């Protein structure tokens, strides 16, 4: 079921302007796409994304002490806001976070005295005149260099990284701990959350995702495998084991089933751009929480409730452990998440309308309009509907991204990246 394919996309992220889109894959590679500048000559050719840079971020490693292989799969990529001509991003695998600098070079120096044009040393005896080297234009070259490597701080597997709004620090979270880093310092990190019990047999929950508040540099949230979210304030104490707020919805007894516990595990948590709400994704639903109300979410959206009766089969084929992500659009009015059969879902929070779309080659010729899809739950299946039993569970959309200001979305379907834009009139 799980073929090892190095090109399976494992993370997708737009940068803060939406000009760049980064993807990470199972083979440890990062591919960055850049949006074409819109030119006046080609009005109907809205900025398309083309490959800008490709580099190997992480390599497989071996932990000799534990006899464990460390996967090179990129779990998350997070961009830093642009402060000069270069772009910076953080990429992480299970154990190590790296800060990459991506910069352009379109000029090169020519006219050295001691070297010839190919770089070979010249015989000093042949030099009769001196000249000043000048910068000449060259073909654009984009180079990525690792500027910092933040290693050896995580015993467990890193699931999240998040850049602080102070742009000086960031956090990395694994199953039991969250560490705070300064970008300039690689040999130290502060541990700010530690939920490891003294006796590991008493372990009941793990950290599944974490994110800094978009504006308040002292606040962050982390979600757990028990379906709870904790908001922490770093001003309260150095070790944020005690939360400021605790978000949990009481379980609906009518929904209780054998697999209730594991489907309530939160796979992703995201602050809204406004910072007023958080969105969480568990196996069957997406929930929106108001930071001011801890006892229940303000909105709950069913992603694929028809799977509720199939949980046993999904446990057998391991699909029940899939970790779906969720994203906000730029104005926080629409939320999006993935499903199976290469379907992804969008929920409009204002109109309460939702749509199911499919990312597949057959259904999306360039510039074609995506047709809404429907899953038939039971009874008579209409012509365009697909029945639950025909869904392809190997085609899952776990990672999606939304442009920060425009209606452009990136959807990762296994090893393919789809980019959809709003229709141009």
């Amino acid at each position, binding site marked *: 079921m799980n073929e090892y394919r190095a090109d399976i996309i494992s993370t997708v992220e737009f940068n803060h302007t939406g000009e760049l889109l980064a993807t990470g894959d199972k083979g440890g590679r990062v591919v960055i796409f850049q949006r074409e500048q819109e030119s006046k000559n080609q009005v109907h050719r809205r900025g398309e994304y083309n490959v800008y840079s490709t580099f190997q971020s992480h390599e497989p490693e071996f932990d000799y002490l534990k006899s464990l292989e460390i996967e090179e799969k990129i779990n998350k990529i997070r961009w830093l806001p642009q402060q000069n001509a270069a772009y910076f991003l953080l990429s992480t695998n299970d154990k190590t976070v790296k800060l990459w600098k991506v910069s352009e070079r379109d000029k090169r120096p020519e006219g050295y005295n001691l070297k010839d044009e190919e770089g070979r040393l010249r015989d000093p005896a042949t030099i009769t005149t001196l000249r000043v080297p000048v910068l000449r234009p060259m073909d654009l070259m984009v180079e990525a260099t690792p500027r910092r490597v933040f290693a050896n701080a995580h015993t467990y597997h890193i699931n999240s990284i998040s850049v602080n709004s102070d742009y000086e620090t960031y956090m990395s979270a694994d199953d039991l701990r969250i560490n705070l880093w300064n970008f300039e310092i690689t040999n130290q990190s502060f541990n700010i959350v530690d939920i490891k019990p003294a006796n590991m047999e008493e*372990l009941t929950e793990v950290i599944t995702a974490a994110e800094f508040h978009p504006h308040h540099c002292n606040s962050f949230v982390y979600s757990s495998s028990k379906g709870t979210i904790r908001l922490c304030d770093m001003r309260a104490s150095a070790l944020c084991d005690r939360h400021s707020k605790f978000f949990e919805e009481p379980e609906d007894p009518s929904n209780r089933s*054998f697999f209730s516990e594991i489907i309530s595990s939160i796979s992703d948590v995201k602050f809204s751009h406004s910072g007023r709400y958080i969105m969480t994704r568990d196996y069957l639903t997406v929930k929106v929480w108001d930071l001011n109300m801890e006892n229940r979410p303000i909105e709950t959206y069913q992603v694929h409730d028809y799977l509720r009766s199939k949980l046993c089969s999904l446990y057998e084929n391991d699909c029940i452990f899939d970790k779906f992500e969720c994203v906000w659009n730029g104005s926080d009015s629409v939320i999006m998440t993935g499903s199976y059969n290469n379907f992804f879902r969008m929920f409009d929070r204002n109109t309460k309308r939702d749509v199911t779309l499919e990312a597949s080659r057959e259904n999306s010729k360039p510039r074609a309009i995506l047709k809404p899809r429907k899953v038939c739950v039971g009874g008579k299946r209409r012509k365009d509907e697909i029945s639950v039993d025909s869904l392809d569970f190997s085609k899952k959309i776990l990672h999606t991204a939304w442009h920060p200001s425009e209606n452009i979305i990136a959807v990762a379907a296994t090893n393919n990246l789809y980019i959809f834009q709003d229709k141009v009139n």
Partner: protein
Amino acid sequence: MEVQKEAQRIMTLSVWKMYHSRMQRGGLRLHRSLQLSLVMRSARELYLSAKVEAHEPEVPLPPVRSPDPRLHQSREAEAGAEAAPPDGEPTSPEPMDTREAPRAEETPARCAPRPTKVSRKRRNSSLSDGGDVGLVPSKKARLEEEEEGASSEVPDRLQPPPAQAEGAFPNLARVLQRRFSGLLNCSPAAPPTAPPACEAKPACRPADSMLNVLVRAVVAF
């Protein structure tokens, strides 16, 4: 009965998944292990409650192999942590059982730092005495382990276990044994639904269930 079978199937499947997850690239995943153990616990509870319901309406004639008292015994004693050999076995393993229990607790803890040594012994014992001993470790193997245990016990206690972190359930085998030991002898004809990834000999003896085999496989790691 259906519920029981289903619960047992899920337990077997979960054990297999846990065993299999240890061999995955990247090592044991804590979250996955936790989720699997939650399912196992739910399945066990379901199995036991279904079992109790099934026996309640019956006339109080205890079944031949009296699984319930055995269940009680193993749970209370806790020393019967090692999978108890089925009835057909000679009684000589009995005293070994209680003595081996503390060993069994330590063995998994030692498993993490020194997996190859322990597992090699077990594998040999099961392979060499093919038809006769089957899956129950031979006396010799146990004695060897005890010797090994005695000599290395002290240093192990002094050091904090280095691989505690990666062994998310460092005493996984112990937990499994403790929780499932009562169940291991109860179902004579459990169909081997799990894939034969481990060194299973499904047809060796009627009393052994796949769960028994899988627990051993996990313990070996």
